[in-house]
């Protein structure tokens, strides 16, 4: 591989970023790439399923201990994936955003990425783009492509829309562009259609729909990614397909985020449609019979 590919995965907390990222890393490693996964979340659990659930010392812990020796922060996980956790403050103190800035600066200054020279670097970044710190991987010179993980939950799409705003802000100054949307926990057609509609409205594209699957949960309980724990499963195949699309895709977008009012009214029409479908699924009630929801 000639040029290193650096991407960042964003999305609302708990939406499945780390699960998706870790499976993506394994899929890429299976294809022969040298992958480094950098968790940018104070929870420091991004790479856990690559190491049977074990935690590793973080970049910021190392800095805090007064050491400038960052040689111990890169840990090999499953299939030789290079695992790094940025770390962050305890809940309720300090500043996590500043933590991300510092961790990424340190990794650069100390030449850590250069030293290991991975083919692919994936940043797994906590949550919404709430401040400059969380936008760090978007800015010039860090990742070149951003992927938004979202379910069909309105708040999750709201977070994706905020991410798009962050991308637009830096798009003209050499910042990262959007690679696409990854739909996660998508089992119904209506959910797919909603995300599809969102991508159309924002001028972006959906890379993959990842279904919600018990296999993921089971493997996670064993401290493994789906690709390690259940390599032949249907779910594993979905992650492999995602990896292939991401590594081959050259498409990048400057997204067109919706303004809040537009987003709300768009969201409310979809939510009532999804609720309607749910009612049919659970209660066998058709809209015409039930009436007046």
């Amino acid at each position: 591989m000639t040029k290193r590919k650096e991407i960042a995965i964003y999305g609302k907390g708990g939406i499945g970023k780390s699960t998706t990222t870790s499976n993506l890393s394994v899929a890429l490693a299976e294809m022969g790439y040298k992958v480094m996964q950098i968790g940018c979340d104070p929870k420091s659990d991004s790479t856990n399923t690559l190491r049977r659930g074990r935690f590793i010392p973080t970049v910021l812990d190392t800095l805090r201990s007064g050491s400038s020796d960052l040689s111990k922060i890169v840990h090999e996980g499953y299939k030789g994936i290079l695992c790094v956790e940025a770390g962050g403050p305890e809940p309720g103190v300090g500043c996590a955003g500043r933590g991300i800035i510092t961790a990424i600066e340190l990794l650069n200054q100390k030449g850590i990425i250069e030293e290991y020279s991975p083919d692919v670097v994936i940043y797994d970044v906590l949550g919404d783009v709430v401040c400059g710190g969380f936008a760090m991987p978007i800015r010039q010179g860090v990742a070149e492509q951003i992927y938004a993980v979202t379910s069909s939950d309105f708040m999750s799409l709201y977070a994706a829309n905020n991410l798009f705003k962050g991308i637009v802000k830096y798009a003209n100054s050499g910042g990262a562009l959007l690679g696409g949307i990854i739909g996660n926990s998508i089992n119904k057609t209506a959910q797919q259609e909603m995300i599809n509609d969102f991508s159309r409205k924002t001028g972006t594209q959906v890379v993959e729909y990842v279904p919600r699957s018990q296999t993921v949960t089971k493997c996670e309980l064993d401290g493994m990614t789906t690709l390690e724990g259940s390599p032949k499963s249907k779910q594993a195949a979905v992650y492999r397909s995602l990896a292939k699309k991401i590594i081959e895709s050259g498409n990048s977008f400057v997204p067109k985020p919706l303004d809040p009012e537009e987003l709300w009214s768009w969201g409310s029409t979809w939510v009532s449609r999804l609720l309607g479908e749910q009612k049919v699924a659970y209660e066998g009630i058709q809209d015409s019979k039930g009436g007046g929801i």
Partner: protein
Amino acid sequence: MVKKVKLSEKIVPTREDRLGTIIAYGGRANELVDLAARRCLKAQDRSFTQTTFCQEWLAMFTLATITDAVSIVHAPVGCSSSLSCINIFNRLGHILRGRVPSNARWLSTNLLEADTIHGGEEKLKKAIIEADKRYQPKSIFVFTSCVAGIIGEDIDAVVEKVQPEVTALVVPVHCDGFRSKVWASGYDGSFHGVLSYLVKEPTAKRDDLINVVNPLTVGRLDEVEIERLLNKLGLKANFIPCFASTDALRNSAEAVLTTSLCPTYSEYFVKLLQERFQVPYTQEVMPIGLDNTDLWLREIGNRLGRKEEVEKIIVEERKRVEPKVAELKKKLKGKKVFVSAGQSRAIGIPNLLADLGLELIGVTAFHYDEVISDRFAELTKRCGNFCTSIANVQPFEQTNILNREKPDIYLGHLGESVWAAKQGFPTAMILIYLCLYAGYNGVVSFGSRLINALTNPAFNKRLADHASSIYRDTWYGEQPFKYLKGD
């Protein structure tokens, strides 16, 4: 517009919020008076501004000279850089009080990169314990900063937690630099801490004790003059907070009255001391100039029910100094003067100058609000429609104004007079510990200083001949208030 102050709040609202303070205005005095009277004064800002002070400076300036206290600055180390300047005042102040000069004592928690991420509360706790052990102070003041504020350090909680472990009384002072553009907000943060954590419920009231709230920039010589006048009324002056002991602050609720040598400085403290401990106050004006000193004394007389005694003192003092003032006036009459000062002094000094017959052609006040609006209106009645600029130290505007107004003499603070000097104008500083300004003697003392400056203009002239031009010539062709913009 004006919010009521409440001691129950952890953090005092800024002066912009509480008093509608403005920091930018340019025009004639009458216009400002009119706008203020009609409540049409807009909070303007500058689209270009030069470096100015941060409120943390003023918060530290308020408490750093307390003799048995230690200051802890919870900040990156740079935020305490101004303490070395405060320390010059501190050492000088000790000398003028006949004490052996000693350094102000301060520690910085030296917040580093890692602390801004993980929080610095542990470090602060350690610093408090260390300060207590190292210096055995009676009080410890903890000053916040931008970094502490941005990462949300809960210094009140740290103070509460650590208090049982130390002997000193620990006082949090909220003064994050970015919170207010009006640096005087820093005074309020300090006094709020003092009122909430130090001042005790009085065990007895003392009807001979009067609190005199005095900023660090009004010197010991002024205090001596004020003490002399108060002694005539049989009152003992408790000068607080600068150079006072922790106990002097703790016992301030015992006083019969609180008065002030600078209303801008004391504004919040005296109101809250009254609200909480029922100590009445006066803070109309700085006792600078004959009329203002009369007024200052009368206010005290009224509050204490001792009007006649005060009138007697006024007559006595006037009789003594008026002949001297008349002498000075002969030499100073008609000289055109420009004054730049903090807002209370910007009223006081011009009144003193008017006593001496000078012609006021312009005033720059660092900020403007209801604390001085009435007095400012009166000043226009006495001194006419002079050029008025409200600026938190903006030399580029100042030099342009002076270039137009061409005063015979310029009066400003330490760092400001140097600009006027480079322009060749005779200058006299309004803050110098070795000159007296306050009270009746202050008029005579400052008057002779002015004559000195006016009769020895050669140095500044030479300086102007040889100094390179401060700004480009084109700037002097522009309007001085070009960079003021509406909200």
